[in-house]
């Protein structure tokens, strides 16, 4: 059996007294694309952030690329070096150019040489179609372009898993397409993707499985066609009817 890229075994998490993740069991195979959806407050972002330790889980086991997240700084750092994350608000570093944003991690965390880092960064920037903007500052780019840079920045870690937290929710509608195109390209290229999104068209086209969450727990998992055409759980049905109309 090929070991899963990301594995949750009976994972719970609390924010203070609030039980935000309940009994999460999920295994993501290498190269698989999993889309997570659900109403706001359902714990989707928390789940994603638990994968690279931005949120600490209180019970259960999380395994990423074979490493166990035991709360120690060493384990967390090791996992973060293998996991790339893209945020809803892009969070590019405004005082650095596009190229410097992408070379920051390879230079300082992975300790690559300057030339190797720049070549790597330019390669990934080319992949997202922004190599010609390498010398610009983030403020000079549109939202869609910034998010594509954010994706390239994450890819410069050469990660085994890519986490995406509502990557297109903060974008104007006309820019959503360019970002989804890049993500589709990534997914089809064999990268393990764990993506929280409301873009159902994207999910249908690219996801291997769709996970529906509500109240901190996984309510339904299904392949996209089955998920959208024949949802089984009443909550899934209610949610889909609300957002798909």
């Amino acid at each position, binding site marked *: 059996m090929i070991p*899963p890229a990301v*594995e949750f075994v009976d994972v719970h998490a609390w924010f*203070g007294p609030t039980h935000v993740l309940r*009994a999460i069991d999920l295994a993501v195979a290498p190269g698989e694309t999993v889309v997570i959806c659900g109403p706001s407050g359902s714990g989707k972002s928390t789940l994603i952030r638990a994968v690279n330790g931005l949120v600490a889980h209180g019970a259960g086991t999380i395994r990423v690329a074979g490493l166990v997240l035991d709360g120690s*700084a060493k384990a967390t750092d090791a996992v973060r070096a293998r996991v790339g994350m893209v945020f809803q608000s892009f969070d590019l570093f405004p005082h650095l150019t596009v190229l410097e944003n992408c070379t920051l991690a390879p230079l300082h965390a992975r300790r690559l040489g300057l030339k190797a880092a720049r070549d790597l960064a330019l390669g990934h920037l080319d992949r997202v179609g922004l190599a010609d903007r390498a010398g610009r500052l983030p403020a000079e780019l549109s939202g869609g372009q910034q998010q594509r840079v954010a994706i390239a920045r994450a890819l410069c870690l050469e990660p085994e898993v890519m986490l995406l937290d509502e990557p297109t929710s903060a974008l104007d509608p006309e820019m959503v397409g360019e970002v989804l195109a890049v993500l589709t390209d990534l997914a089809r290229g064999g990268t393990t993707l764990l993506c929280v999104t409301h873009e159902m068209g994207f999910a249908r086209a690219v996801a291997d499985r769709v996970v529906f969450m509500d109240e901190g727990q*996984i309510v339904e998992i299904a392949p996209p066609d089955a998920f959208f055409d024949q949802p089984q759980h009443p909550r899934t049905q209610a949610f889909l009817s609300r957002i798909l109309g």
Partner: protein
Amino acid sequence: MSSDGNPERFVRAAMIPPAPPPRRLGGPLARIRATLFPDLANGLVTLAILAALVWLVPAAFRFLVVDAIWTGASGEACRPEVTGRPVGACWAFIGDKINYLAYGSYPAAERWRPNLFFGLLAFGAAWMLWLGAPKRAWGAVYLFVAVPVLAYLLLAGLPALGLASVATALWGGLLVTVVVSGVGIVAALPLGILLALGRRSDWPVIRILSIGFIEFWRGVPLITVLFMANVMLPLFLPGDLTVDRLVRPLVGIALFASAYMAEVVRGGLQAIPVGQRQAALALGLTPFQATRAVVLPQALKIVVPGIVNTLIGLFKDTTLVAIVGLADFVRVLEAARADPRWSAPAVPVTAYVFAALFYFAVCFGMARYAGFIERRLAAGDAR
């Protein structure tokens, strides 16, 4: 309920209710280890700080309370050779000098007058600083008009009213500190408001004069202002008219503080959206009325924390009036500890500790109050 590693399909049978978080292994001990000793560097620093605390806190307590001398008539009481035990703070010294520290050389029989002054001032300050107080406009008139007049009559005296004259040279200690800070803030606030409005005026002369005034007083040290007032004010007056030695630094401080207050008020005015003034004008108010009734009250409410901070700065700055010979609290303390009757090694230390405790209590208290007001204002505006 768990499913085998990688289900293609899964449907939850029953929803899981929320559960409380588990008690961590080891409980609070593990949390302490995580926050205070996560790695070697942090651990060493934690140990260093704990060691410092373990040494400092009992030593301070011993000095301030356990070994302190509370009663005595002279420095003998505070010497270790005489008492036979280690000696901490010589509070007996403070007790003996307390009237001098509070009033300076103000005649003992007339001390009810500074006391009354303190009371009137405290009442006025409380009225203005308590945001929920009724009729605060009357409070402003009280504090900015009535109290200064009453204070002058009470403290300096007016023989016609039966109050014996007390020369300002006799005033000292806390009285001088409060008078200087009080006059400073009471003069600075109205003047600062005028300057802030003047800085935003459309009339170039007013604007240039306001900016020049503000930048001048903000660009020079307070000590030079005090020197200047002391030396130059008598020169500018005609004939043999002279200015009381207390009034000169008061004028300097009032002008100095008004420039800083002007900047504080300006910050508040800038924070009011332009739409407020425009709406007031659209309602038919004249520009003067719009400012007075709509913009200024809102701006002043916002800058109450800034005003309190200016007051704190002013209170600390009063220590500088010693340079022109005024006997403020610190100067009076220095004079008191030089008294040969109270010569003991513990006395100077006690004097400085007492001064530190006093200023810290007042300034820290006022700062907390300003923070409290700021949070109250922010909460009020939050939707």
